[in-house]
């Protein structure tokens, strides 16, 4: 289990990213995942070029396989990142969805 302190510490920057718009620079769909993400596979992951010039790496949500392409416009949103067991603290983080 990830300690709540660790989750809090990692989330310091999240609020600054939420709602930012950007475009997909490169992407993949992960079919074979590690233990923490196994139940979500397959899922798309992309490098996003944000409007302010920063780049981030995160999963894409609400996105059809056929829409996955370089240049896809997206917006950064808050989503559940992982949940190890039903009694753990749920980790939220950044994901991006098509505009």
């Amino acid at each position, binding site marked *: 289990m990830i300690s709540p302190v660790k989750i809090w510490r*990692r989330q310091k920057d999240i609020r600054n990213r939420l709602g930012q718009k950007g475009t997909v*620079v*490169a*992407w*993949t*769909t*992960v*079919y*074979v*995942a*590690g*233990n*923490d*993400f*196994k139940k*979500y596979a397959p*899922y798309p*992951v*992309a*490098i996003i070029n944000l409007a302010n010039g920063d*780049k*981030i*790496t*995160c*999963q894409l949500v609400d996105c059809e396989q056929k829409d996955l392409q*370089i240049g896809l416009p997206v917006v950064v949103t808050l989503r559940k*990142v*992982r949940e190890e067991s039903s009694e753990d603290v749920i*980790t939220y*983080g950044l994901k991006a969805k098509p505009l």
Partner: protein
Amino acid sequence: MKIYVTGYYTTRFGEIWEQSLSELIDEAITGVLKNAGIDKKQIDAIFFSNMLAGVLGNNLHTPSKIAEIMGVNIPIFRSEAACASGGIAFHLANNYLQAGAAKTVLVVGAEKMTDYSPEETTGALMTAASGEEQAAGLTFPGLYAIIANYYLQKYGYTEENLAYVGVKNHFHGSLNDKAHFRNIITVNQVLKSACIAAPLKVLDSSPISDGAAALVLTSDKKMIGKMKNKVTILSTKTASDAISLSKRKNLDTLLAVKIAAEQAFREAKLARRDINVAELHDCFSIAEILAMEDLGFWKKGEGGARIKELSTQFGSGSPLIVNTSGGLKAAGHPVGATGVKQIGELFLQLCGQAEKRQVKNCRYGLAHNVGGSGGTAVVTILGI
């Protein structure tokens, strides 16, 4: 000061469930001492490389365990730089000898990976990536898949171009009795194999392997005089880069590789065309193509087309043959052992000991070892 590699041994790579990490290390050290014809009393220090024993096996402080296995009290160091741990151990050993701290040292690399589920190993390997990439659920195949997708689209290639890397390296693996995989595969088989992270498939990817490899390095002129098999270290350079793909300027260039290669060629006073054999870090098919470009053998963007010519395959008669060991793809990828095995394969080739896969008239060899999708790179050039 001239430093020589005077001995090499590798265990078989693969799923070696009958041997523990310690037993693999023991076999590699016993083997290399025998091959070099020296006694353990002649070893002044050991550089050991391993990535995952701490994360997966609750096994750290391996140097003291090596002291126990060998019954010695010499300095032993461990290097960890993900999949470049072996190259870094070699690099540090060379510097240690150059500094005059010792005359003869061993470089030993070992990894035990198949005791764990693929998910556990996949997760453990991801400790080498950035926190952001871990939180995005990326895997190492995923990181290289992002690079591959970008490369294919930018230069107008398809997954078929990538497939030739595995085909070539499996052919080489079929000629190496220490290789994890010794079967020949076709482009069609690669394309039809299961997808791990689009566009990379199982047969684009190096396997999870156990194995250990060891080298003897020496500056001792007396010892060198007696050795029949020896190669000179002309240069070994390492460079680093941001680990996150999102923090890099270019997605289709591994900058650390470019920097280390330029420095190594300058120090060795050699041109690209002088290299006869190269062991490149083909953890995924795209990685060998990028390596050929970033090392300066091919122009940027040409690799996808050039690989289809199979000019770097054994028997093609061209001046540079790549990954005669089978590369990481077919020889296997016990991560701590890989960088050591690469140097060892060059040693065999340059000394005329590579048997069925012996490239004729080799004078110079290059090894390219990469950690964490390009965060660390080591480029080493050897000569006879």
